[in-house]
């Protein structure tokens, strides 16, 4: 098939990774960076060509009877594991994967370009570009996967490459510990994912997305009503798979890694933690949505987790002082919007509008959040600090960045005609359709979003004028401002894309009608949020402080992110280490090392072997050995009787 050239979007980045990884150190920094960027540019062009051919072409069976088809443009059998269980690798083109192609390649290309300026002069510049290529490769492989197993492999590869990227500043202990935390937390979630895959494939005998989703009812019923702890095993499988998604997408309570991951280079945050990797969970649920749609219990879990996370993260974002952390929590909150939107999207309600809305928001959010992160990077580059207190009045020094940031804020706050308005509006419609509770809930969160984003905006660009001394902040170089301008333009116009034409849950075109009651309410709420932020933060004053004092308890709790990290610390360090590792360590030190040390002191002569035996160490070993063998026998005999 002609579209099989899509596979080039995987081959080019992986080749660049190998090339830059192996001979990168021999190249000059500039050459390596430009090579990586050009390669990514070519990848972007191919990705666009593939996506546009898919959406607008007709000659390759893209659309049959008004329904967009899912095309497997590449399909190879990788391994016949058992007769029924065959692992394949391939490339699947359908509306959501084509859309993700555009999102990933655009943002990745912008980040490549931006990094030329931002990472200039960093040690290991070549390595950085190699890792970026690796990440892009794995992320594209993830969205193009034809089966869940292939997806899992790329899923983990995404984890590995983000581990490498977050820990890029390996000289900073905070960066290294953050990358480790991110890796372990998401790995923990992936355990759920893997178990879910095992259960699902065990019953359905297939890994293929198309087989699974073309007849979801049949796939679900292969379990034959088997239950585990009161729930059907399929609900378990789907929920466990969602746990994997929740880990990557930083849903409560697995969100703790994302704010720390901000220790990585800022362009990396823009790529990984705003636009691509963190939406992998949303993508996973969307990919398997037909299965979730017939399992109401799993969908409810998704809705509740998403809605709670949205509120929680918004509350925390309101009081953070580090700009990247505000953005991190805002990302968590926005992704929770998408998750909730999938959760409330029942096919019978309004043509499953939630599904379309979720994907729409994923698309627009990727653009404006990447924009916000890249702006933040430019700001940090200019003032050499992440803290808001070191900023203020920057609108005079960095006009382009100021406008771009403002566009991003307006988009995320949901002010028409910016992109976020349209997608968020659809999510709210879907939520109100499902239940007014979720509708009101999300509206409140939307208001909070407007508030904390403009709090951030005013604190950076207005507020007061700190004394910058000799080091006046200045606009970033061209390689950095171009991505800002480009993404800014996209954030303005993306909302006008008739998204329902392209991506819907049953792949039939669906016309978006703006529901003006919902839209009007959300505009008003957003304006209230912005107004509040304007009153409190436009000029330096003490209203915020007074408020913080009045609600001291709440403020402190939110500032400390409701003590979630402390809770994890407590569980891992206090309970696990104290109750399990310490006794074991004691045993190891006293019984095993202890005897060693003692002997080392006693023994100088050649008779050490004999003394050694007398001292009991080997005897202890043998003793344990014998006890073990006898115990194994005795216990088995008792069991047999």
């Amino acid at each position, binding site marked *: 098939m002609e579209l099989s050239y899509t596979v080039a979007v995987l081959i080019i980045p992986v080749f660049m990774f190998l090339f830059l990884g192996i001979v990168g150190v021999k190249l000059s920094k500039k050459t390596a960076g430009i090579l990586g960027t050009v390669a990514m540019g070519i990848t972007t062009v191919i990705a666009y060509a593939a996506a546009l051919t898919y959406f607008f072409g007709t000659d390759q069976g893209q659309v049959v009877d008004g329904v967009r088809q899912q095309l497997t443009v590449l399909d190879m059998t990788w391994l016949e594991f058992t007769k029924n269980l065959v692992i394949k690798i391939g490339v699947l083109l359908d509306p959501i994967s084509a859309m993700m192609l555009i999102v990933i390649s655009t943002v990745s290309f912008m980040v490549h370009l931006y990094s030329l300026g931002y990472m200039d002069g960093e040690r290991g510049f070549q390595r950085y570009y190699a890792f970026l290529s690796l990440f892009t490769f794995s992320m594209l492989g993830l969205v193009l996967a034809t089966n869940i197993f292939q997806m*899992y492999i790329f899923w983990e590869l995404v984890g590995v490459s983000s581990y490498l990227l977050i820990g890029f500043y390996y000289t900073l202990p905070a960066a290294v510990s953050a990358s480790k935390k991110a*890796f372990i937390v998401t790995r923990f979630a992936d355990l759920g994912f*893997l178990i879910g895959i095992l259960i699902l494939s065990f019953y359905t005998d297939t890994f293929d997305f198309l087989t699974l989703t073309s007849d979801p009812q049949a796939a679900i019923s292969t379990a034959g009503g088997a239950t585990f702890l009161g729930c059907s095993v399929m609900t378990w499988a789907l929920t466990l798979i969602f746990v994997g998604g929740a880990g990557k997408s930083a849903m409560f309570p697995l969100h703790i890694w994302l704010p720390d991951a901000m220790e990585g280079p800022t362009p990396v945050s823009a790529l990984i933690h705003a636009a691509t990797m963190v939406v992998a969970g949303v993508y996973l649920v969307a990919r398997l949505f037909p299965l979730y749609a017939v399992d109401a219990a799993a969908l409810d879990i998704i809705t509740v987790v998403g809605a709670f996370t949205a509120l929680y993260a918004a509350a925390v974002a309101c009081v953070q002082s580090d700009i990247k952390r505000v953005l991190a929590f805002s990302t968590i909150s926005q992704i929770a919007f998408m998750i909730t939107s999938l959760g409330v999207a029942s096919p019978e309600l309004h043509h499953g509008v939630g599904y379309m809305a979720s994907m729409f928001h994923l698309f627009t959010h990727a653009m404006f959040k990447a924009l916000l992160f890249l702006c933040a990077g430019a700001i940090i580059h200019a003032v050499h600090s992440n803290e808001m207190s070191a900023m203020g009045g920057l609108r005079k020094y960095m006009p382009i960045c100021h406008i771009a940031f403002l566009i991003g804020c307006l988009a995320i706050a949901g002010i028409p005609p910016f992109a976020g308005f349209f997608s968020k509006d659809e999510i709210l419609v879907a939520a109100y359709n499902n239940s007014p509770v979720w509708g009101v809930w999300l509206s409140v969160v939307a208001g909070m979003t407007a508030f904390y984003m403009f709090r951030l905006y005013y604190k950076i660009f207005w507020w007061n004028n700190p004394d910058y001394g000799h080091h006046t902040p200045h606009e970033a170089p061209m390689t950095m401002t171009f991505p800002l301008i480009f993404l800014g333009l996209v954030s303005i116009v993306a909302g006008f894309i008739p998204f329902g034409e392209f991506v819907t849950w049953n792949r039939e075109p669906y016309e978006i009608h703006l529901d003006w009651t919902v839209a009007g309410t959300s505009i008003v709420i957003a304006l209230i949020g912005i107004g509040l932020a304007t009153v409190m933060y436009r000029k330096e004053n003490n209203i915020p402080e007074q408020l913080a004092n009045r609600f001291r308890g709440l403020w402190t709790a939110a500032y400390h992110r409701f003590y979630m990290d402390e809770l994890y610390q407590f569980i891992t360090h206090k309970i696990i280490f104290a109750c399990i590792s310490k006794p*074991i360590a004691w045993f190891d030190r006293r019984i095993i090392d202890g005897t060693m040390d003692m002997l080392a002191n006693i023994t100088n002569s050649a008779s050490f072997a004999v003394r*050694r035996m007398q001292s009991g160490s080997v005897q202890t070993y043998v003793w344990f*050995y014998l006890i073990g063998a006898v115990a*194994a026998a005795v216990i*088995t005999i008792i069991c047999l009787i």
Partner: protein
Amino acid sequence: MDYSQFLYMPQELGLLIVFLFVFLFDTFLPKRNQTSLPVLTAVLFGIFTVCNYFMLVRGTAFSGMFESTAATYVMKVILNIGVLIVLIQSIRWSNSEEMAIRRGEFYELLLLTVFGMYLMISARHFLLFVIGLETASLPLAALVAFHKKRYESHEAAAKYMFTAVFSSAVFLMGLSFVYGLFGSLYFSDIAYQVVNNTSAVLVVALAFVIAGIGFKLSLVPFHLWTADVYQGAPTPVTSYLSVISKGAAAFAFMVVLVQVFGAAYSKVWEWMLYAIIVLTITLGNLFAIRQRNIKRFLAFSSISQAGYIMLGVIGGNELGLASLMFYVLVYIFSNLAAFGVAFAIEQQSGKVSIDDYNGLYKTNPWLSFTMMLAMFSLAGIPPFAGFFSKFFIFTSALECGETSIYVLVLIALINTIVSLYYYLLVVKAMFISPDECSVARFRSSCGERVAMIVCTFGIILTGIVSCIYTFLVEAAQDGTTMFGMLN
């Protein structure tokens, strides 16, 4: 006697030829030319390994005491690959001053143990099996003591010796029970009679047999010697012990448990094995967390890996056998890569603590990179081979479809997360640097580099190149006669 039956053991004969060559060179080569011996052995063994690949024969010899199938052939090929890597790795070490007059013995003893392992794998009679087991165990004690002037080396050898002898005694005790019950030591005779036998004597016999082989595999609670011996032994011997010796024991274990006692599986040793696996994986992991000495750390990590290997035995079908062989192959690459790095650093600077690895990335990026790959593979992170080996072995265990196995696999899965923690500790140590690295930048020797490159390619490619696994499955199916008893 029909001498043609020796043709059924081409691998053994080939190994003997290599051994004789090494022996002759050692004896007749002028002592000053002996620095060529390590390279010579590696080359000879390399040729043998390649030839071995083409030496598949099927049949039995010596009135059924010895059997050669595709499965045993593949097992031997896998072991050969591992031995070859160890040989290449240790070239510089055995050319050092310290080894000057004992180079020959090192290789002779090493090849002898390989011969013992071959016998263990191919034996179909317990007498031959015991001979193989002893041939594989006892020379190792001499190898462990090879650092003649180092106290720890002696101590380790003594410990190894005593525990090995003791475990042999227990094993023979178990065998004598078996003989008493069934009146024969042929695997097939025993397998035939073991059906429906649930007597307490059989249980005791089984427990003792498992203990005997469990010693070589360092399964908990038969593992206590492991850390001390690994730490004390010269590093090439440690890597040999932890990889080759363990792999061979795993193969033998599979054969004995499934082929001989398979019929008694669900009744007698199912729970015994469950308990041992859970204990091995969990305790190995928990001990590993606290280790600061890299060799001790790898020792405990290898204990826990042995637990995963045992999951293949639980599967007990050809899928289980294939997964087990695959696991051992991947384990050979991953662990030898880790030991290779540890060894290179120890050779260069004498540093063996994980704390000394702090900031290694800055001084020795390639070593750190190899180590990182090894750690990722051991932790089972895709797309490295370690993930696939774990995945296959879990799936093969799940194939039997009993609820108790689900729990077992779940425990094993949770343990992979725990293990990730300590494997990342090493990665973290190498890539974080609060202070300057105490290991200076150095260039490792040619042999060490070749071995590391081979391992790195193994780690990356064995998982991705699917025909390797397919090849193993075919080989395993060829050996299915041994699974007739189980189901």
